[in-house]
């Protein structure tokens, strides 16, 4: 493998031939470079999408901080090179390297991938290939790094089980240290130049015993004749089955020394996470299910972190992040204090993910005064029936009055997010989306005139693992196309901009997120046929994936358009976000009956978080967790074996 000096020399010859060479050179403010030889354990953190997107990822930044705070370990970064750079690197024999020290990834002890979305799977294979690390876990030996991955896509790790040695399920802040401790103990002696680890097998076995770590090779999947799963067995003693996600009882201090990119990127800003988790219980929302319990940060900590982060980076934008910012307990006080702190300092403050019903007039006034950026609301559905099904119940009156107040305060453009393809959705439900958009812009025109604009973003629902809708089929392609055509026909107003998701992208996301272990070979085939950057538009994509399924003799519809038996064992059932399957099933049945579940800050529905993490909760009592006190959790009926009529979306 090339040395850092050789890589730098080789780069010099190609960098001026690529777009944005600043992506590939490092040298940003606030990076950490540690002495290689004197640091016992070396981790390469990889975000397998382009630099422009990966650089602002907060999850990776947290791990970068956590690891680099250790004396005995270092962490450096790598991203997926864009296709122009990849071609030149391959052509000049340059392996993928980290930006800090320009060392090949293969020189590291641990290569850790962040997988926040499933469309990064082919890129992950490509990154391993560019790093000249064997793509398949079984082909790696004692000389190779251990490859781990985590992030929301690990909610169902099975499609990537053949390529990742170990998955982190849940939150990584604590377990990353346990992983490094274990692997430090397994490293070969420094004078053993032939090996990196004494025994790869021993290293993986020890990792498999850590709470929240899933090592796929120690679990065997048995299938039924119809291709569904009979059961998943553990192959060695002392490993969890199911593997329960990790959480931190208290959010550790937020990172503040954000890396400042030298080129323009997608999110040029510092972010402070104000709250983790969401209590609203929207049935389509995987993030809302898998990030429980809700934990809020103290106001003082947020304001101080914001100040430090802005001072350390000079960024012009501060984002206060959470899944549902307006649900934060002291949101008005927070916006007050942040505005006051940054008065007169040319700083844009953004508060993404506002809930329509909790955006008060007071909060809007605050936002108008000191915050800029657009205003985005997400009604998701436009009929009462649909809103009951998805458990996001917001009345038309609320949406109209909130929109009116937003336009009245001078925002000229409002963004509304909807989703089509919810279970049992009809064309009438879709028509209602167009109708609601027209009523909203009319409200705007009444209070602010003809200059007002509306942006309607209409995504397509993917039934994600570990949500109440995991039993539901994906809407059929022709149905999605018909619904999108209806919206395009109805929304011809020049001041309404409509955007939608390509049905091929939706189906791909569904295959990848709902796949079993057999999907791994489909992913490999697709990658071999040239698939990468699957989150990006590429006309060849649909054909490549169809061919990849054909290569493996698998039927795509098996993963996406099949009615699920109520007692079906899902490919991800041996992985749990501590939300009981019974709870999800009961919620699913309530959806069929159009029953709403209120915000679970108000009423505990016994999702399973509190019993699973009772020790943690006892050790950290008080206001941090937003779970209400529960005396005796209500008993939930197990899924019935009798066939419940399952809705198929679109029919």
């Amino acid at each position, binding site marked *: 493998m090339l040395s850092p000096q050789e890589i730098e020399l080789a780069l*010099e*010859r*190609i*960098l*001026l031939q690529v777009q944005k*060479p*600043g992506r*590939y*050179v*490092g*040298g*940003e*403010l606030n990076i950490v470079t540690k002495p290689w030889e004197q640091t016992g354990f070396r981790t390469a953190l990889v975000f397998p999408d382009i630099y422009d997107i990966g650089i602002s990822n907060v999850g990776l930044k947290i791990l970068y901080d956590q690891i680099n705070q250790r004396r005995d370990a270092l962490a450096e970064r790598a991203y997926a090179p864009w296709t122009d750079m990849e071609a030149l690197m391959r052509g000049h024999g340059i392996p993928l390297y980290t930006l800090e020290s320009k060392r090949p990834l293969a020189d590291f002890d641990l290569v850790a991938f962040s997988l926040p979305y499933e469309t990064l799977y082919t890129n992950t294979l490509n990154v391993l290939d560019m790093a000249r690390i064997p793509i398949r876990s079984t082909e790696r030996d004692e000389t190779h790094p251990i490859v781990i991955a985590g992030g929301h896509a690990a909610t169902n790790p099975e499609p990537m089980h053949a390529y990742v040695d170990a998955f982190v399920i849940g939150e990584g802040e604590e377990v990353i240290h346990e992983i490094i401790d274990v692997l430090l103990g397994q490293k070969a002696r420094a004078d053993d130049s032939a090996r990196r680890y004494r025994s790869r097998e021993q290293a993986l076995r020890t990792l498999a015993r850590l709470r929240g770590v899933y090592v796929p090779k120690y679990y065997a999947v048995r299938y039924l004749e119809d291709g569904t799963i009979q059961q998943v067995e553990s192959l060695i003693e002392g490993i969890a089955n199911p593997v329960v996600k990790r959480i931190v009882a208290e959010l550790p201090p937020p990172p503040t020394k954000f890396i*400042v990119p*030298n*080129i*323009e990127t997608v999110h040029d800003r510092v972010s402070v996470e104000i709250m983790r988790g969401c209590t609203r219980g929207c049935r389509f929302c995987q993030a809302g299910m898998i990030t429980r319990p809700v934990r809020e940060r103290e106001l003082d900590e947020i304001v101080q972190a914001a100040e430090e982060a*802005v*001072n*350390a*980076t*000079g*960024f*012009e934008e501060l984002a206060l992040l959470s899944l549902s910012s307006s649900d934060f307990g002291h949101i008005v006080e927070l916006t007050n204090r942040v505005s006051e702190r940054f008065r007169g*300092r*040319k700083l844009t403050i953004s508060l993404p993910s506002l809930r329509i019903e909790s955006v008060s007039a007071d909060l809007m006034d605050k936002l108008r005064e000191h915050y800029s950026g657009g205003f985005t609301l997400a009604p998701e559905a436009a009929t009462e029936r649909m809103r009951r099904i998805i458990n996001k119940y917001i009345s038309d009156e609320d949406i109209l009055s909130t929109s009116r107040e937003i336009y009245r305060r001078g925002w000229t453009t409002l963004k509304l997010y909807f989703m089509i393809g919810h279970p049992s959705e009809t064309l009438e439900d879709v028509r209602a989306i167009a109708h609601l958009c027209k009523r909203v812009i009319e409200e705007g025109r009444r209070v602010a005139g003809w200059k007002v604009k509306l942006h309607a973003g209409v995504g397509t629902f993917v039934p994600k693992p570990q949500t109440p809708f995991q039993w539901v089929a994906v809407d059929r392609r022709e149905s999605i196309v018909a619904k999108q055509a209806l919206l395009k026909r109805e929304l011809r107003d020049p001041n309404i901009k409509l955007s939608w998701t390509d049905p091929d992208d939706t189906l791909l996301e569904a295959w990848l997120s709902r796949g079993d272990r057999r999907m791994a070979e489909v992913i490999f085939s697709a990658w071999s046929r040239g698939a990468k950057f699957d989150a990006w538009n590429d006309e060849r994509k649909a054909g490549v994936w169809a061919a990849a399924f054909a290569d493996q003799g698998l039927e795509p519809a098996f993963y996406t358009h099949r009615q699920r038996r109520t007692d079906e064992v899902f490919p991800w059932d041996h992985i749990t976000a501590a939300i009981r399957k019974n709870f999800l099933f009961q919620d699913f049945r309530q959806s069929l009956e159009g029953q709403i579940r209120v915000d679970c800050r108000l009423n505990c529905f016994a999702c399973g978080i509190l019993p699973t993490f009772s020790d943690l909760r006892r050790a950290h009592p008080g206001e941090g967790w937003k779970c209400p006190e529960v005396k005796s959790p209500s008993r939930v009926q197990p899924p019935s074996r009798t066939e419940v009529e399952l809705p198929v979306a679109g029919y």
Partner: protein
Amino acid sequence: MKPALQNRHRIQPLLLAQSMRVRIIFSKTGPLIYIGNLDLQTMWERAARRAGLPLAYSQGFHPQPRIHFAAPLPLGFSSRCEVLDARLNEALDCGGLAPRLNAVLPDGIRVLGAEKIEDTAPALQTQVLSADYEIALQGGFEAGDLKQRIDDLLSAAALPRERRNRRYDLRPLIECLRLSKPTSETAGRIQMTLKAQEGATGRPDEVLEALGIPREVARIERTALTFRRLDVESNRIITG
């Protein structure tokens, strides 16, 4: 123009006393040579914020920081003589400016000097006359051959070239071009002075191409900018 300014000075002495024009000379090396001019502007804006320097902004719907570079440096060149003028909303002692900025700048940008500039001084970018470059060649060049190529180039009456669909003559843009002694690490060094005025700016990579030297084997550094003689003291900034 001048009487009007003085007039304003008398009417609103506070306004001018509170603001200040400052000239910064800096180097650009390492990874930062791959950062273009627009991104460099943002980099300075953030650096000023980190250092707590009150940058002045333009008026209007999209206020821009009032930073102006003497002559944009093409991507991939290093430099030890970049110059910018910035306006601050506060008068301060320039002595402490360089260390204050260097503490918050990424490796690859170093402030070499900072001085107060009269408000009435002409815009920086209108005052540049020419730029000096030093080019280090990586291997494979024989000194005699290089010298011959340079002599041939200089003896040409005209060097018609095309860049971005525009035809121009490179020859009058070359003020000086010569071979300097090779050091042990490089096969050869070329020094050149090229015109750098609005509408008449020579690019060293174009000269290299005219010499038949591939861009990939050359490290190009800008070593000096020459300015029109001004009423202010410094007219030529050479550093390093």
